[in-house]
C-alpha cells in the first residue's frame, strides 16, 4: 500500500484551478464556488494554502454575490444558499470574513427560513435539511445565529428523523449519509445533539463500512470516497467513530488515488475529480493521518480556523 501523494494532489488541485475549458470544468461551471471551496480546503489541509493568490479569490467571490446578499455558484449564476455557504467558508479559510456585509448576508439567510422552521434553498422554495445545515453553519460562523428561530429550525430537523436514527431531506425522507451529516452537523452547532439516538445512528453509520474498507451512503450501495467525509464526520460528532475499522478505510482512500497525476476518485481506478479529492483528504484528516491539518467535523473547515473564529478574540 502506498502513502498519501501529498505533492501530487497539490499539483492536481492547482491544475484544476487553471483549466476552464475542458468538459468537466464546463459541467461544473455553475458550481465553481463549491469547487473552489473543495480545492482550497484541501490545499489548506495539505499545508499549501499559501500557494494561492487570496486577493484574486476574494475579489472573484465577491463578484458572485447578488444584491439580495446571496451568492451564485459562479459569476452570472443565480444566488442560492448552497453557494453562499461555500463563499463564507472560503472567506473564513482565507481569514477574510471582514470583506462581507454581514447584515446583508444575514438578512438573505434568515429570510429563507420558513414558518415551520425549515429553510428554502432560494426564492423558489425547495425545502431540504441540507439548507437548514447551511443556514445554521453560515450564521454561526458569522456570530449571527440569534437572527433565526433556532428552536424551530432544530424541531424541523428532528421531524426528519427516521427509524434507523438517521435523517432525510424532508419529513418522511429516507436516511442518507450526506443528509445525516447535515442534520447532525446542524444539531451539533446548535448544541442539540441530545436529539440524536447516538447508539442507533452510530450502528447504522458504522454498518456503512463494506468489506473493501470503504463506506457507502445507504444500505446495500457501493462504497464511495465521499462518504469518508459524510459518515466519518457524523460518527465523530456523536463519538462513535471507533466503531469502524479506521485502518481499512485509510487503505481504501489511498487506493483511490491517481498515483501518476494526483487527485482522488470515488472508487479505485475511476477518474479523479476535485470533489472526491477533497473528501478523500478530509476523510484522512478525520482519521488522523500524519501530516494533515485537523478538520472540524461540524463546520467542515480546519480546526485552527474554527478555533480562531470562536476562541481567538
Amino acid at each position, binding site marked *: 500500500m502506498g502513502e498519501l501523494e501529498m505533492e501530487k494532489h497539490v499539483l492536481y488541485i492547482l491544475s484544476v484551478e487553471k483549466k476552464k*475549458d475542458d*468538459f468537466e470544468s*464546463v*459541467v461544473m*461551471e*455553475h458550481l465553481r464556488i463549491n469547487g473552489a471551496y473543495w480545492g482550497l480546503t484541501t490545499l489548506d489541509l495539505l499545508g499549501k494554502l499559501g500557494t494561492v493568490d487570496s486577493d484574486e479569490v476574494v475579489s472573484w467571490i465577491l463578484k458572485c454575490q447578488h*444584491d439580495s446578499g446571496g451568492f*451564485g455558484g*459562479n459569476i*452570472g*449564476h*443565480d*444566488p442560492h444558499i448552497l453557494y453562499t455557504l461555500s463563499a463564507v467558508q472560503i472567506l473564513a479559510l482565507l481569514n477574510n470574513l471582514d470583506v462581507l456585509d454581514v447584515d446583508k448576508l444575514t438578512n438573505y439567510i434568515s429570510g429563507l427560513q420558513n414558518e415551520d422552521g425549515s429553510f428554502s434553498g*432560494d426564492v423558489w422554495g*425547495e425545502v*431540504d435539511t441540507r439548507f437548514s445545515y447551511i443556514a445554521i453553519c453560515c450564521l454561526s460562523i458569522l456570530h449571527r*445565529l440569534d437572527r433565526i428561530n*433556532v428552536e424551530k429550525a432544530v424541531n424541523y430537523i428532528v421531524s426528519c428523523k*427516521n*427509524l*434507523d436514527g438517521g435523517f432525510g*431531506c424532508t419529513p*418522511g*425522507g*429516507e*436516511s442518507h449519509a450526506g443528509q445525516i451529516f447535515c442534520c447532525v452537523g446542524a444539531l*451539533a*452547532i*446548535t*448544541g*442539540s*445533539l*441530545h436529539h440524536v439516538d447516538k447508539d442507533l445512528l452510530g450502528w447504522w453509520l*458504522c*454498518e456503512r463500512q463494506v468489506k473493501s474498507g470503504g463506506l457507502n451512503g*445507504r*444500505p*446495500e450501495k457501493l462504497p464511495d470516497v465521499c462518504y469518508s467525509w459524510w459518515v466519518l464526520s457524523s460518527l*465523530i*460528532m*456523536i*463519538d*462513535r*467513530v471507533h*466503531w469502524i*475499522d479506521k485502518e481499512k478505510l485509510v487503505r481504501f482512500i489511498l487506493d483511490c488515488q491517481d498515483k*501518476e497525476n494526483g487527485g482522488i476518485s*470515488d472508487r479505485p*481506478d*475511476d*477518474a*479523479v475529480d476535485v470533489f472526491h479529492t477533497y473528501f478523500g483528504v478530509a476523510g484522512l484528516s*478525520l482519521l488522523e493521518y500524519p501530516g494533515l491539518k485537523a478538520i472540524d*467535523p*461540524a463546520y467542515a473547515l480546519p480546526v485552527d480556523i474554527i*478555533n480562531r473564529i*470562536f*476562541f*481567538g*478574540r
Partner: protein
Amino acid sequence: MGGVVKRKCTEDLANLRSQKMQQLLLQKLLNYAPSKLNSSIITITNCIYTKESLEICSKLLEINPEAYTAWNYRKLAVEHYLQSETDPDSIKTILSEELRLVESALRRNFKSYGAWHHRKWVLSKGDLSLDHEFRLLDQFQKADSRNFNAWNYRRFVAAMKKVPDEEELKFTTDMINSNFSNYSAWHNRSILLSHLLGKRVQGSFPREEVLTEEYELVHQALFTDPDDQSGWFYHLWLLDQTVKPDAPVLVSSWPVQGSDVIASFNGNLNGCASSPFTNFHSDTGEFPLILYFNQVVEGVNSATVTVESIFDKNGDLVWRPLSTNYSRNAQAWVTYLKFPDIKDHSLKSYSVEVSLAHCQGIISSSGSHYIHPCQFAFTVSLQPLDLEYTERGPGVEMVVWTDDYFYTNETLLQDLSPTILSFHQQRIKEDHDATASMWPSKTIANEIALFRELLSEIDCKIGKLTLARLLMAHDTIMSYNKTPSAYNKVHSEEVLELLSDLMKLDPSHSRYYKDEHSLVLMQKVTSNRELLLKHCWHYRESTSSNIHVSICLRLNNLSLSRIGSIEILLSVQMLDLSHNELRSIEGLEAMQLLSCLNLSNNKLHSFTALEPLRLLKSLKVLDISYNEMGAHSIDTRRYLCSSPLSHTVGSDWNVDDCKTDGINMTNYWEAVLIFRGLNLTQLDIVGNAVTDEKFKLLLVKILPTLKWLDGDDVH
C-alpha cells in the same frame, strides 16, 4: 506499482462524453447561458423571454439538468406567461411543456434535485393529472427502486392526491415482495406504519396484530439473505416498538425509600457504624435528592414533584436535569435540599416525603406522560458538628488508589448491603402489572426461538446480534414486570458470549460489540447485591486513627469501554474505574454524591470527555493520569461538550480570563472549560500528552482549591 492505471469515467460523464455533438452544443450554450439566462438580470431588464432563449434553455437543461439558473429562468418565464393567460387549455399547454422538459431532464439524470423540484413547482401552479405522475413514478421506480428523490416525490404526490396510507403501504409490500433488498421500501413502510399506528384507530388498526404481521414479513427478508442489511434496521425498529414502555417510570432515587440518611455539614462522619452509603458529607450545607427515570423526560419541577420536609418549601426547590448538554430534559434530575441552621447537636432525624402524584407534566421525549403516581419517604439525621474532625473528610488527606489501601470485610459490608442499591422500591404499582399486556413478552420469546433456530443452521452476524438484543429486551421486560428484588439479568452470560463471538466474527466493528459488551457487563455486575458487594472495598486512610470509613466501588480492570447502569449506583461516593478502556464517562453526571473518582489508565482522548464531571458538585479527588489527553488531533467529544462552538456557553465566555504567561489559551480552552467549574483538592494528570510544566501552572491557577497535583503539594 508502475503500470499505468486506466481510469474509468463516472457513468454519467461517460454518457455525456460519447455524444460529441452535444458537448459542442453544451459549450456553446454555457458560454451563452450565464449572461443571457441569469434570472436577476432578466428581472431587471423587464422580463424578456424570447422563443429562442427558452429553446436554448430547454436544450441546456436536457443536457445538464444541474444548471439551476436555467430552471429559474423557466420558472420566471412560466410565471410571466401565466399572468396574462386565462384560457385553461393554454395554461395546461404551458405547464405540460415544463413537465415534458423535466421528464426528459430526469431521463438524463434522475438524481437531479433541481429537476425534481421544478416538477413539484409546476404541479403547484395548476390542476394537472396526478395519475400521470404515478405512472411516471412507476417507470422511474422500476428503473431505480432506491432513488430517494423519486420516493420523496412519491410521498409528495400521494399527499397531494390524498392517497390513503393503507394504499401506499400496499405499494411498499409489492416492492418488498418483488425484492426484499429494498431498504427504501422498508423505510417508507416504517413511515406509513408510524402514521397509522400514531392515529391509534382502535380496532381498525390493532397495534399488536399489525406488528405481528410485520415481524412475519421481515423474517422472510432476514432469513432469505441474512447478509442483506435491508431488513436489519426494520427488525430492530419493530423490537423497539414492541418493548418500549410508553409512559416514563421512576426507576431509582437517592435517597431510597425508607433509608436513614446521615448528613454532616462541613464536617466528618466519624465512627458511625451506619452505612457509608447513606452517610453524606457536604461543604455547601445542602444535600441532593436525585430522581432517575427509565427514559429521558422533561417537566420535573416543584409542580410535578412534591417534596415535604422541614428543609425547604416545596415551591422553592429548583430541579435541574442532569444532562451534559444543557437541554431541558434528562433521565436523572436533581434538587438540592438545604440543611436547617440548627445549633442543636442531638442526632435528630427529620422525615422527607417525596411524591409524584400530580406528575402528568413529566413527559418523555416521545410525548408520553408520566402516569404511575408514586411516593417515597426517607429520614435525614444531622450529624453533630465535631470541629475536631472538620479538617478531615475526603480531599483533606491525599487519597492513594493503590491496592494496599483497600481491604474487604465481609461482615461489615453485609451490614451495609440493604442500602447499597438505589432501586426505587415502588417502581411499578401492582395494578399496573395486571393491566400490562402479555403480548410483548410472548413476542420476544417467539423471536428468541426463531433466531436460535436460524443460528442452528447458519452462523451469521445479524442472527447473533439480534439474538443478543432480544435476550436483553427480554430481561428488560422481565425487570419491569417483577419486583426489584427479582431484578435479575438471567441472560447476561449468554449475551456476553454472543458479543464476544461477534467481536471475532466481525472484527471491523469489534469495538461496537465491545461497547455493548461493557454495558451488559455493568448490568451483570450491578444486578444483585452479592455481585456488587464483590466490588465494594474499604478504603483505609493512611495516617488517621482509622475511624473514618470509606467504601469504594472498585470497577477497575474489567476492560470496560463504556459505563452504564448508573441508576443503581447513585449512592456511590468513591469510585475506581481505573485500568479499563473507557473513552467516555457519559452517564456519570447522575452520581451526584461522588467525591473521589479514579479514571487513570483508560483511553480518554480529550478534556471534553470529562464534561459530565462539571455537574458533580461534590467531586474533590480526581485521577485522570495515564490517559490519552492531548494525543489526538480529532476530538470526538468536541460537540458533546458545552462550548461556544455549539452555542451552549454564552458568547461572553472568554478563555483569556485565565490567561497565563507563555500559554496560548486557544489551545487549552477545553481544559479551562472543564476544570474551571470544579472544586478539586487533588488531581492526578501525569502520563498524558498535555502535561508540561506550563500547563500545570495553568491548572493551579484555574483550580484555586487544589492541594495536590500529581502527588505534589502545590503550595
